[in-house]
């Protein structure tokens, strides 16, 4: 039983994660690499190259010096995957692991709420996941490229998590009941994070050209939608298959 949940979640995450990583490799990462070329001296570059001037570290990172020389050949100050195969491999791995994380979280929600994820409703789970974890957070914190000015990292993470929780709760509520009060509560849950407002980026010029940033925002949101629809659909299909195998009467037709 528990094994079925984990097997379905992880297999679905592997499929969705690998497809998403492929899209990222061809459509998303080139934009990140392109954006990094605009940062120049003083901007943030990826990992080993420089973590300079206006780079915001996670809360708790001690004060430290960054070497401004730091070209690609410079001695790395901190580990980062080398550009090329290694970076792609790490991105693919991270995307698959994040996919597994999302799959297990919606699997847990399904268990707690008593709402099965099936082939029939997997598409809706996917849409709910997209709205909860991609669209609603992006509504306040637009997908960012390296080099774009942004507010304090921890404040943004807190807002991101709070928005996902509130939006997810709204989706769950509407999945359980369509009563009038539920719509009112769901609308409030969705709206409140945006009324509070995401941490505002400092009013600084962006190092990244606008056309790159808009392209990135559109492509990452589109890719996230594809990811979530694949994840929800495959997760549901596998749940049906595993349930059909263990139940005395197989699951209903799902084609």
């Amino acid at each position: 039983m528990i094994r079925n949940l984990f097997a379905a979640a992880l297999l679905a995450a592997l499929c969705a994660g690998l497809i998403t990583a492929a899209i990222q490799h061809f459509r998303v990462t080139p934009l990140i690499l392109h954006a990094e070329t605009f940062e120049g001296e003083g901007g943030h570059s990826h990992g080993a190259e420089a973590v300079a001037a206006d780079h915001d570290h996670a809360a708790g990172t001690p004060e430290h010096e960054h070497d401004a020389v730091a070209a690609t050949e410079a001695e790395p100050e901190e580990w980062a995957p080398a550009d090329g195969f290694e970076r792609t491999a790490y991105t693919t791995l991270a995307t698959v692991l994040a996919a597994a994380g999302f799959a297990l979280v919606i699997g847990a929600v399904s268990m707690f709420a008593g709402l099965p994820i099936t082939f029939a409703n997997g598409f809706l789970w996917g849409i709910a996941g997209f709205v909860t974890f991609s669209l609603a957070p992006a509504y306040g914190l637009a997908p960012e490229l390296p080099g774009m000015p942004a507010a304090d990292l921890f404040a943004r993470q807190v807002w991101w998590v709070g928005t996902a929780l509130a939006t997810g709760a709204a989706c769950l509520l509407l999945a359980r009941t369509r009563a009038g009060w539920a719509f009112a509560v769901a609308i409030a849950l969705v709206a409140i994070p945006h009324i509070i407002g995401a941490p505002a980026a400092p009013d600084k010029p962006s190092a990244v050209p606008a056309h790159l940033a808009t392209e990135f925002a559109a492509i990452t949101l589109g890719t996230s939608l594809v990811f979530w629809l694949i994840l929800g659909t495959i997760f549901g299909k596998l749940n049906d298959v595993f349930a059909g195998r263990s139940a005395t009467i197989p699951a209903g037709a799902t084609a």
Partner: protein
Amino acid sequence: MNTTTASTGLQSLSISQRIIAGSLALLLGLTLLVGTGFAGDFRLHNGAHDTRHAMGFPCH
């Protein structure tokens, strides 16, 4: 919940089975998401850097 034959796996589970399965999944899932999307450690940050940007996690 555990009456007759189930049409899906979930409906054949008892409440306690669902809570155990859900808790384990939530724990592992959140660990993976924190590790890939939120952790401040520079190795995790740099390794997952492009994924964080691509998936819309706050980064930098």
